[in-house]
């Protein structure tokens, strides 16, 4: 097992949710939350999944953990005991793998049961995975709390007694409790104040170094991904539009959507005021995605081909490993393309 071997391989993963209408709940359409994603997560890396709300990043995170089952496609886990196709396992078969894949949720206020003490919430996974005696569990929970810079005694208190940042740290402790190899962080710092956010980010990085973890970091905040991630996948309407080394994304942005997304972020640096590319309109509905390239109705460089032909994720030359992007126009200099004059 080399450090850069893929720990997870996603092949053509699709998650479609049926839309039911009327008294008889007839299925009238499908929300294509994730629409054909190919992705390798390498052992020991931090992979950022970024995109706007509704682009399918959370659903993809849940599909990795089999919390929602993929409608089509495979998720393959490879560990010391060879490769296992998680998508073909039933619940009992998954039990063994749940231990290795964990999640930290966005909202620290709703992801802890208010009726349980912290110990109650944290001991559950331990009990299911074979820590039989209560004394042992108390010791492990105490150690976990210390690992996330909290006091041992906090375990007998209830979630409402803690601040948002502390609760998020408890959520991280819970994900760590059964020593997973991969943690999906779903907007783990988005609900926190900036001064607390920095504490949690530093904690996540320390834990990664100590325990040799792999993170899939789902967020909409591109400043955080730049700081934290090794590779970044930009999603739009259920598809990955750009996937590359984190530094490369900022230095050499290829896809027009990533360019617009990056330019839209307010930068806390007065010397770096750049011109904003303001996208017109909203993200289209994933029930009825546009034909061809999903981004074409909002794209500045759109040509006829974009409206009919779905662009493949193609590989481009880059100094930093591979750089993938899904756009027809990248071979040509973008400035020469006709600019769109009217909005839809």
């Amino acid at each position, binding site marked *: 097992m080399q450090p850069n071997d893929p720990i997870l391989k996603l092949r053509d993963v699709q998650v479609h949710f049926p839309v039911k209408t009327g008294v008889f709940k007839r299925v009238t359409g499908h929300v294509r939350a994730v629409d054909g994603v190919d992705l390798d997560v390498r052992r020991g890396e931090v992979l950022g999944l970024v995109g*706007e*709300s509704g682009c399918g990043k959370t659903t993809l995170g849940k599909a990795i953990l089999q919390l929602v089952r993929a409608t089509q496609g495979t998720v393959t886990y490879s560990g010391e005991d060879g490769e296992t196709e998680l998508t073909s396992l039933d619940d009992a078969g998954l039990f063994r793998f749940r231990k290795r894949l964990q999640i930290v949720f966005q909202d620290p206020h709703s992801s802890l049961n208010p009726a349980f003490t912290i110990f109650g919430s944290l001991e559950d996974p331990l009990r299911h995975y074979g820590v039989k005696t209560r004394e042992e569990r108390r010791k492990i929970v105490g150690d976990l709390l210390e690992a996330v810079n909290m006091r041992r005694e906090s375990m007998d208190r209830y979630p409402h007694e803690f*601040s948002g*940042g*502390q609760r998020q740290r408890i959520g991280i402790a819970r994900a760590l409790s059964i020593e997973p190899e991969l943690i999906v962080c779903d907007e783990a710092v988005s609900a926190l*104040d*900036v*001064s*607390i*956010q*920095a*504490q949690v*980010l*530093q904690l996540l990085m320390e834990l990664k170094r100590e325990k040799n973890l792999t993170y899939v970091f789902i967020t*909409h905040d*591109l*400043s*955080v991904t*730049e*700081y*934290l991630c090794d590779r970044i996948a930009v999603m739009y309407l259920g598809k990955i539009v750009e996937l590359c080394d*984190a*530094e490369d994304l*900022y230095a050499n942005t290829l896809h027009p959507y990533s360019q*617009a*997304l*990056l*330019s*839209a*972020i*307010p*930068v*806390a*640096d*007065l010397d*770096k*005021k750049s011109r*904003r*590319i*303001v*996208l017109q*309109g*909203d*993200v289209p509905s994933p029930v009825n995605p546009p034909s061809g390239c999903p981004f074409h109705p909002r794209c500045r460089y759109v040509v006829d081909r974009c409206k009919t032909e779905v662009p493949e994720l193609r590989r481009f030359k880059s100094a930093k490993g591979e750089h993938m992007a899904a756009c027809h126009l990248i071979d040509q200099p973008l400035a020469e393309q006709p600019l769109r004059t009217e*909005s*839809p």
Partner: protein
Amino acid sequence: MANEVALTVNGLKTYIYTNNRCNRALDGVSFEIRQGKTLCIVGESGCGKSVTADSIMQLLPTLSRIEDGEITYHGPDGPVRIDQLPRDGAKMRAIRGKEIAMIFQDPMTALNPVYSIGFQIKEMLKYHTGLGRSDRHSKAIDLLRSMGIPLPEKRVNEYPHLYSGGMRQRAMIAIAMSCNPRILIADEPTTALDVTIQAQIFELMDTLKRDHGTAIMLITHDMGVVAELADDVAVMYMGNIVEAGPVGKVLRNPVHPYTRALLESIPVLGRGKDQEIKAIPGQTPDPYNRPKGCQFADRCAYRIGACDQMPDETQVAPDHRVTCWRYEEFAADAAE
């Protein structure tokens, strides 16, 4: 009219009472908003930024009181002391919405789901202007069009749930701008929105400021937003303004330890993976159990004995003020 002051807040103290306890939410806040300029108020949750906005709009909860200080609105008919007006009085109702308008954080809850967007815009026009019924309708359509909402003739009769998040926020700005207010207060207007939609809203607010000379008070927790939009900035911490001044001075040469710590704790886009971020230790104090002196002292790396007493506001430069005992050292440091 560019530098005309639209609103002055002086020594404002607003206390909120719950469960027989008193939260000194604002403890002596002073600032002014100028015509055609954007003042950004920045701070973490619980620092009193929203209470400041609610005090100006007289929208505070029932069990709260402006204990001290003055809010003066410099209207076309001379100055008006807003803090002395009855909350529901005719005068306050004439100012609220017409002269000073507000955009709220969450457009999903701020709009009434049982009335159409058009009705909610026309309601403003009905009470604040003398327009007739059909004029109001066409004005509502014009407003939606100027906010960039497609098919305004059709959309005007639709209900909020048919609008997307960004469109709801634009509809709310349309309501706020319907009477051409002189001051626009925006309480975290884009926190619930995606960055590409946020860019659209900011573009819109910049246009309003340019074309109408509207004075904008923008409440945010995002230093990035401050750097992009603000002319002036006031940094708040636990009910006090710890540092205020033009955005160039405060962001480039911060002299309060909290401002400095805040700027050091955020990852900045474009600085790469090697940038160092420093977390601020601890957490904001319990508002019912505040530190005695400087509110930031417990988390401050530069704490000295004098910090047990609240420092006075000092002018570092004519337009740059700070509340810290040791500001001189930082000012000298920044000048280097």
